[in-house]
């Protein structure tokens, strides 16, 4: 819509309401939080601390204006990049859940039909729907932990080397199932073990080459049990030196440190 193509109209004084209230009433009748404002109320400053203010207003306004589905505790004021990424992850976790539900329902159905379970139905999947983890925050946290593990060169090499149908339980690491009910400790331990096992596929260390693992905290390194072949241990101990000084190359591509 361009101004030029509009027809200009003359508005005469007489066209306006004769009984318009006096100018002192001018100004928004209501503040942006929806409450009727008394006269003389100063305009709320929109510029000051913009990102904080609009978040505060939102929580004030929640009672009257926010549709019920979006009422969600605002944990802390985030930057837009993180907010968008998190909401994207939420949507994908919800999609995963639908897909998973369908999968176990069909697996249940088909295992009732015949004695032999189908390939994808094993003890990990056979959680009945009532035993699923459904808390979004938990699922999000777990998904983030899984993403950290999958975002490594080791994982890339692993999935290229060992296709799913050739995987043997116990030998080949399996991604923990985020939809099953586990205690926090149990889950965190599963993730640790999984990531440790993945190190077997770390690219061979070269001089100056970075091991692509995210920061290992000392606690995690201490927890590693000594393998008979000592392979896993050696790699981890070596990595401990590297990971504190530089951002791993592979992690950098998705987790740029936000510039403020």
């Amino acid at each position: 819509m361009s101004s030029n193509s509009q027809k200009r109209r003359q508005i005469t004084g007489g066209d306006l309401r004769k009984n318009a209230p006096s100018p002192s009433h001018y100004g928004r009748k209501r503040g942006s939080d929806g409450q009727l404002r008394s006269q003389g109320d100063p305009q709320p400053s929109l510029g000051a601390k913009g990102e904080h203010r609009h978040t505060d207003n939102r929580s004030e306004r929640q009672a009257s204006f926010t549709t019920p589905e979006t009422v969600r505790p605002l944990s802390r004021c985030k930057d837009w990049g993180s907010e968008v990424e998190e909401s994207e992850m939420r949507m994908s976790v919800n999609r995963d859940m639908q897909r998973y539900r369908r999968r176990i329902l069909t697996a249940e159905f088909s295992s009732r039909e015949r004695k032999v379970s189908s390939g994808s139905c094993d003890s990990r999947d056979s959680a009945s729907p009532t035993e699923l983890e459904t808390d979004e925050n938990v699922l999000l946290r777990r998904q983030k932990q899984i993403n950290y593990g999958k975002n490594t060169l080791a994982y890339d090499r692993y999935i290229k080397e060992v296709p799913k149908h050739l995987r043997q339980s116990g030998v080949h690491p399996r991604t923990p199932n985020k939809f099953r009910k586990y205690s926090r400790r149990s889950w965190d331990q599963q993730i640790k073990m999984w990531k440790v096992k993945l190190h077997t596929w770390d690219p061979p260390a070269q001089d100056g080459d970075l091991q692509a693992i995210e920061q290992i905290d000392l606690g995690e390194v201490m927890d590693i049990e000594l393998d008979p072949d000592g392979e896993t241990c050696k790699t981890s101990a070596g990595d401990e030196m590297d990971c504190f000084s530089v951002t791993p190359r592979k992690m950098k591509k998705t987790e740029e440190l936000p510039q403020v």
Partner: protein
Amino acid sequence: MDSVCVEYKLQTLDAGAQNLLKAALKDPRAVDLEKVATAIVDLSLKDSSFCKEAGRICYALIQEEAKDANSTVFRRNLLTRLQQEFTVRKETRKRSVSQWVCLVNFICTIFDYLKVNNQPMAALVQPVYDCLFRLVQPDALTNEEEVDCLAMQLHRIGEQLERAEAGRMDELFYALRDGFLLQERLSSMARLLLLEVLEFRAGGWKLSDTAQQYYYSEVAN
């Protein structure tokens, strides 16, 4: 890659910017995406006619990055840079109303173009509203440039905004009506723009045929 130049109308930019954007569109991983994001935001703030192309370029870059590397570095950088500008919008408006108008235009363009799973980005809803609320303030209404911007954004994304949060749209329109009726020193063009927007929304974000005729056709008078 002259087809890229033509497709995104890059010829109007200086050579440095052209090369950077061309390289980025060809392979996002080969460039410093933070620089690209900064360049795009800076260019959009100077030239409002570049906004639309900027939106398309951002869209293309995000698709490209997601496809090749399954990463979101550019989007994150873009949003961070945009948020920085949004935070200082009061100062920007004091310095230059035109730049402020460009900022609003660009934020709304991003809101319009960059969807997440086919939904507008929830993080931008309140900031966009904040901008539009600023535009219905008395001092902004006396500026045709700002009224024009307000009207344009409401035409483009009003419906989506309302769907995201209806209450605040109601609020905005209370203020808009107040402005239309009570604001002194409003140019007749500004009044026309506001009236048209009022009718537009009242018609469910569409203009009735008769209103269309009133506002947009040449009537021999």
